[in-house]
């Protein structure tokens, strides 16, 4: 087995097992209220940690440009909702800014 195949196999195991196990441990079981709440809060805290600080360096070396893109996404989402318009809007604005430079 080549080194690369070994790396793929190892990475497959360490990425798959952690995302698989909870489906056997948690699903369909009655959970204590506190644990249920904890799991319900994860989407908020995960999004927070995924966005901050990572999103400020989305466009590498240009934090202000990244912030403008995020602001556009925020504005479009606030006014119109949905996911597509904010995604396309942010990409468009940043393309224009980068193209003008």
């Amino acid at each position, binding site marked *: 087995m080549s080194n690369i195949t070994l790396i793929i196999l190892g990475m497959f195991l360490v990425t798959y097992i952690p995302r698989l196990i909870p489906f056997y441990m948690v699903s369909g079981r009655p959970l204590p209220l506190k644990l249920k709440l904890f799991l319900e*809060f994860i*989407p908020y*805290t995960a999004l927070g940690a995924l966005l*901050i600080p990572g999103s400020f360096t989305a466009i590498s070396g240009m934090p202000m440009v990244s912030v403008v893109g995020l602001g556009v996404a925020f504005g*479009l989402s606030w006014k119109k909702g949905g996911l597509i318009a904010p995604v396309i809007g942010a990409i468009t604005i940043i393309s224009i800014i980068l193209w003008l430079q």
Partner: protein
Amino acid sequence: MKLQSKHGIRDGLPIVIGYFPIAMAFGILAKSGGLTIMETLGFSLFVYAGASQFIAVNMIILGSGVGEIVLATLLLNFRHFLMSASLAAKMDNIKGIAKPILGFGVTDEAFSVASFAEGTLSESYLSTLELFAYSSWVLGTGTGFMIGGILPEVLQRSMDIGLYAMFVAILVPELKKTSKALTLALLSGVVNSVFYYIFNWPQGWSIVIAIVLVSLIGVFIYGQESSDQEVASHE
């Protein structure tokens, strides 16, 4: 409303748009690093782990060992354990055969979209959403390897904002609904930044600790209030 496959297609589309250019960049990087097409596709087909794939290829180029690369991957992707647990808790009676499939498709993006989708999660919804995202990742990888950069450089660079813009757009409707969303998300971002910038923890760990710590704080702050509601709703 119970979410169905067609909703999975609708909600998967922004992920498809976000993944494709990033997967292309991965294909291009892997090719320039000397990987074959089969090895490159192997990463996206079997590992399916975004940033970890980039890091792995960079480490291969630098000559890092297998153990080192696998350990870095475990660290960076361990947050998916928490995300899977949160998703699984929302779904009742998942069929035995569906579990390995639904589990494989859990990514930051599929998790975020599914968690805040309006309606009851179902196997068909989540599996469709995940399949769409996965296909985009694999096809984008192949495209990047075979034809390289087809997008103008400015556009390719701009598309790096795509998934972050999607995360923002997922969060905004929640911010309108409840102050909890803003408090928890902001606090988690601050904690993550402190661990990452001040303590210099690897990003994988800082995210995991921020999620666990702030979700626990959430239980502490809001726990009493919801057990009161629970009591009230039984009265």
